[in-house]
């Protein structure tokens, strides 16, 4: 990973900086840091490879599955109506568990509880396709995650994880994404880490990937042990990032370098 090579320099910069929240007026989506070519790819549905997953998700939405032999569409009918705005308030508090679940976990709850099918694996084509299709229905809508009072302690947990230094490089997310978002790391824009476009197509991955995949990549970058897919820590980080981006527009499926 080219990123690691340049991290040492950043450690020096971050060592002196103090984590401070980004003022509302300076918040910027990761899209605004990209080259015009990559932005054009994101903006046009027939050039955006993420739309391939959206199309597959649409087909899966109508496909019957599990012992219940039911399709998503059998209960939720037209996703363009029933799923509009849904992704904009995830992760959301799940009463049955007393904790938040993200969109992928929510979809898998419907797989297991309502379709009586086996849950889909993290980063599997099917789960990414369904998540992309559901989230696509919120494109352009403002993020509303985090207004549920029951979820407040988990947002705080996510915030602590975001601030906490960890790994062999002893860096916190905030050292890069709050304090140095206007700088570059090995040629990559650091950005403010707003999760507006997930799941998104990363040219480096040559695939669609979830927000959890992105977070695990950043954690590996600071040479810490990444939390497991679906772990409470990753969900708390997703939750904090989404509530930190409240009011910003959903861009799924976005494209990133």
């Amino acid at each position, binding site marked *: 990973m080219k990123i690691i090579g340049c991290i040492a320099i950043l450690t020096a910069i971050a060592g002196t900086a103090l984590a401070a929240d980004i003022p509302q007026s300076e918040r910027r989506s990761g899209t605004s840091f990209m080259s015009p070519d990559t932005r054009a790819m994101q903006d046009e549905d027939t*050039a955006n*490879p993420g739309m391939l997953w959206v199309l597959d998700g649409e087909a899966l939405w109508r496909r019957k599955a599990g012992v219940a032999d039911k399709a998503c569409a059998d209960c939720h009918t037209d996703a363009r109506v029933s799923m509009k705005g849904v992704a904009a308030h995830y992760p959301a508090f799940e009463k049955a568990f007393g904790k938040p679940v993200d969109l992928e976990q929510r979809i898998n709850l419907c797989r297991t509880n309502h379709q009586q099918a086996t849950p889909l694996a993290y980063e599997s084509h099917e789960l990414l396709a369904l998540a992309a299709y559901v989230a696509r229905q919120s494109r352009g809508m403002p993020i509303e995650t985090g207004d549920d009072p029951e979820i407040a302690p988990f947002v705080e947990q996510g915030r602590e994880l975001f601030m906490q230094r960890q790994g062999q490089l002893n860096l916190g997310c905030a050292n890069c994404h709050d304090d140095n978002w206007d700088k570059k790391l090995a040629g990559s824009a650091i950005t403010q880490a707003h999760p507006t476009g997930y799941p998104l197509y990363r040219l480096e991955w*040559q695939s669609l990937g979830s927000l959890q995949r992105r977070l695990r990549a950043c954690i590996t970058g600071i040479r810490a042990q990444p939390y497991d897919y679906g772990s409470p820590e990753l969900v708390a980080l997703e939750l904090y990032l989404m509530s930190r981006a409240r009011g910003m527009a959903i861009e799924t499926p976005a494209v990133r370098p």
Partner: protein
Amino acid sequence: MPSALINVPARAKRGDVIEIKTLMSHIMETGYRHIASGEVVPRDIITSFTCRYNGTEIFRADLYPAIAANPFITFFTTVTESGKFEFEWIGDRGFSETASASILVE
């Protein structure tokens, strides 16, 4: 489940030069990667792409292992008459997909 995204203008004037954009889902596995145990991941790529305009071939491309996943191919053509563009992707392991788009020329 392979799918394609096609962008052809729905209508154009005779003699106009139009841009055609195509995106095909494909992993484009190079054949040069190894798994942890050392075995080579077999090559699995699209090897050829063709576009026909009312039956006549107007564009063809050969694809190679260095091309990224989900190849995005765009090209230009001059429109002469209403009709159909037919696209065909052929590749390793019997990969064969088609798509089409109509255009109204006035």
